[in-house]
């Protein structure tokens, strides 16, 4: 008998819900089988904590006296986009501080940018606001300079067009020089390999065909409760898939939003990639309802089942070539060793498995305590299996 969202929510309200993490579900399905597991388990929680570049925050900076309609705005010298209403701005995670030396002395350090401003806001640290305007009859003020904290401004809404990539490339460097990429530092002659996915804990790898994660899905976002508002940019369901629908290449993505004021420093951090730029590292967790046997089967996915493509970031990736050097699974990656073209290569992560696990645990506790209810998607993502 399939379950419904409202049946599961009733169980949550009554404190009778059975919630396990995506890691725990692997064992449960292995020992009890899909049928029994789907009857006994109501919800499986997932998590991921890693750099997510397509992130940013809408800020309403509040009206001044006299009023101002911002033309240019900087927060700690990092420019924000002002093409919105008078005191609304959008601050992107990868925007750099105005005086950043970039890659002039290679590789640049990229010490501070949008992701760090977002971190400073979340931490309640003072942030310098500077704004310029041309002045109008209704908004006469032309310049503002003051120090704010997140408590001083009316709204801060994290709104990210692309997060939580479903699977990702494994990056290596086949050239004979060190390269500096958004996948980290890559040593020459395939000296190391970097990957970036929570694998068996990752939200979209536990719902590979988007049967439950859709528009309106309530999620863990940066330590608060947020929502999925759509498929993210570059969402591409049509990639080669293994049995069980698991994508072998970067596939689905999520667009998410949540109240930055409720988020906590532990789950949202500025990040600097040497030679590349700045970004935001963010924690996301999704609770997946075990509506039927299929969902039990999907959520039992383990690192061994999930394959990723190894790509050369010295030539093929920058030139836009689709060449793949090989395929590895997340168990090998997590163990820290892969073999490509006969060579054993040490592997390192960019997303934190330990933190992904913590997020799945927190989400589980929220649901057990009745603090987090599941929401049925109001629309499905492109490529969803029905």
């Amino acid at each position, binding site marked *: 008998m399939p379950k419904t969202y409202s049946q599961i929510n009733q169980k949550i309200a009554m404190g009778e819900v059975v919630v396990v993490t995506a890691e725990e579900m692997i064992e449960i399905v292995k020992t009890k089988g899909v049928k029994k597991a789907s009857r006994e388990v109501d919800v499986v929680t997932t998590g991921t*904590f*890693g*750099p997510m570049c397509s992130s940013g925050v809408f800020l309403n900076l509040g009206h001044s006296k006299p009023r101002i309609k911002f033309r240019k705005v900087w927060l700690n010298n990092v420019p924000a986009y002002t093409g919105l209403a008078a005191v609304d701005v959008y601050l992107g995670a990868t925007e750099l501080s105005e005086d950043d030396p970039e890659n002039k002395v290679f*590789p640049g*350090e990229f010490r501070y940018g949008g992701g760090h401003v977002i971190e400073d806001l979340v931490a309640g640290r003072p942030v310098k606001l500077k704004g310029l305007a041309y002045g109008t009859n209704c908004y006469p003020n032309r310049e503002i300079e003051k120090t704010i904290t997140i408590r001083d401004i009316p709204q801060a809404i994290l709104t990210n067009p692309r997060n939580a990539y479903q699977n990702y490339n494994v990056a290596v460097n086949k050239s004979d020089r060190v390269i500096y990429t958004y996948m*980290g*530092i890559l*040593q020459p002659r395939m*000296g*190391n*390999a*970097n990957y970036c996915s929570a694998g068996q804990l990752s939200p979209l790898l536990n719902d590979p065909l988007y049967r439950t994660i859709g528009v309106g899905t309530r999620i863990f976002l940066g330590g608060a409760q947020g929502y999925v508002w759509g498929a993210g940019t570059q969402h591409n369901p049509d990639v080669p898939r293994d049995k069980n629908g698991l994508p072998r290449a970067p596939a689905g993505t999520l667009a998410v939003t949540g109240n930055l004021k409720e988020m906590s420093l532990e789950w949202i*951090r500025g*990040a*600097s*990639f*040497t030679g590349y730029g700045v*970004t935001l*590292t963010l924690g996301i967790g999704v609770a997946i309802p075990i509506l039927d046997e299929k969902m039990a089967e999907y959520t039992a996915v383990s690192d061994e089942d999930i394959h990723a493509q190894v790509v050369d970031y010295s030539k093929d990736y920058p030139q836009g070539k689709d060449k793949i050097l090989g395929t590895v699974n997340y168990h090998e990656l*997590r*163990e*820290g060793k892969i073999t490509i073209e006969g060579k054993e*290569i*040490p*592997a*390192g*992560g*960019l*997303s*934190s*498995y*330990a*933190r992904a*696990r913590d997020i799945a645990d927190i989400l589980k506790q929220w649901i057990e305590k009745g603090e987090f209810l599941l929401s049925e998607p109001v629309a499905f993502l492109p490529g969803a299996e029905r």
Partner: protein
Amino acid sequence: MTKKRLVLRFPPELVEQPITYQLIRDYDLMINILQATVTPREEGRLVVEISGERKALEKGLNYLSQLGVGMQPLAQDVLWHQDKCIHCTACIPLCPAGAFVLDREKHLISFEKERCIACGLCVRACPYKAIEILF
């Protein structure tokens, strides 16, 4: 003013030379000797803190390396800030000394300072500035 803490290794033929004196006189550098040893094979090992104008310091160190003095930053000053570390593991494959160790159960890393040779590779690799090298 720039300050550097270094481990200097002098080959036997240089042990008797007044090199530190020259650094002070010709390059206007201040030298604070933190430790000095001569090994059984008569190689000299000096742990020093050298300070002076950045340019002068560069020239002085250049002079030392031309003489054949081995130089290495002081390993004791590599700091791992556990509170900033997110345990991503990006630093592990880069470390030539195996100083970062991963607990496979907990997926948490730890830093074994004794193994670190202060090469500085991990400092650049950590996106959260969790590793700091103080020269």
